[in-house]
């Protein structure tokens, strides 16, 4: 994308009822980029305000889940006077193809951006079937 382009505001997308949480705080769906290189799939998600200790990435039944919580304690003594966006935890899940090696997932969090690198399973060499 061009550097000269004006950065547009993206409205934060609230998480819908499907995987509703047990406590009544707002959850948002982090914006994500997914791209693929020869040997890995990379997921990049924006989770501003989430610290490493409040981030949970798990893989279960082929579904990769990301949960990030905001520490609302930081807002203690803050009285809102004007607001353009809401604050909330983040949650998003992705179904992985069986090309992904579950043991080869690495995560990195920097400047409110989570980068997950998912290594692909090395494809088994094509096997030639002899016709008997």
């Amino acid at each position: 994308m061009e550097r000269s382009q004006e950065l547009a505001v993206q409205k934060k997308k609230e998480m819908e009822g499907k995987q509703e949480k047990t406590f009544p705080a707002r959850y948002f769906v982090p914006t994500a980029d997914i791209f693929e290189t020869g040997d890995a799939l990379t997921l990049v998600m924006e989770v501003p305000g989430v610290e490493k200790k409040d981030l949970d990435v798990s893989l279960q039944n082929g579904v990769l889940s990301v949960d990030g919580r905001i520490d609302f304690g930081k807002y203690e003594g803050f009285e809102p006077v004007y607001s353009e966006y809401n604050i909330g935890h983040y949650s998003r899940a992705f179904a992985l193809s069986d090309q992904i090696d579950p043991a080869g997932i690495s995560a990195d969090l920097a400047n409110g951006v989570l980068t997950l690198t998912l290594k692909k399973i090395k494809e088994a060499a094509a096997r030639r079937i002899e016709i008997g």
Partner: protein
Amino acid sequence: MAYDDPFDATLSLQQALDAIRDSNWLESGTSGGGGYPPINLFRKGEDLVAVAEVPGIEKKDIDVQVRGNVVRIAGVKALNYGEKVSIHRRERLAGRFDRAISLPVEIDAERVRAECHDGVLAVYLPRAERDKPKSIKVN
């Protein structure tokens, strides 16, 4: 605000933010609302704090300026995908931004400080001494 239950604190703050969404508390003019980054303004004691979510933007790429009662937040957000990638999904946006808000109170430009942690920018705006309300004794 003081809460015992952290879940209560969360919901209360979220409701409070919803209730004042785009309130006319900021002076109209300059670039009031709508620009990037979206801003939340808080009162903390006598001072103000402007908070904005700026994920993926390096500290060095954010420029915060204060002049009179106008705060300007400008910068650029770059996304780097590297070479030889095929992109499956692209939701994040890149580009430059430049936004100014004018506050209805006078601030002490010398004491303004900005912090950026985990993709959240906080600009602490101390109110100017001469702007603080003084109690007048009624005789």
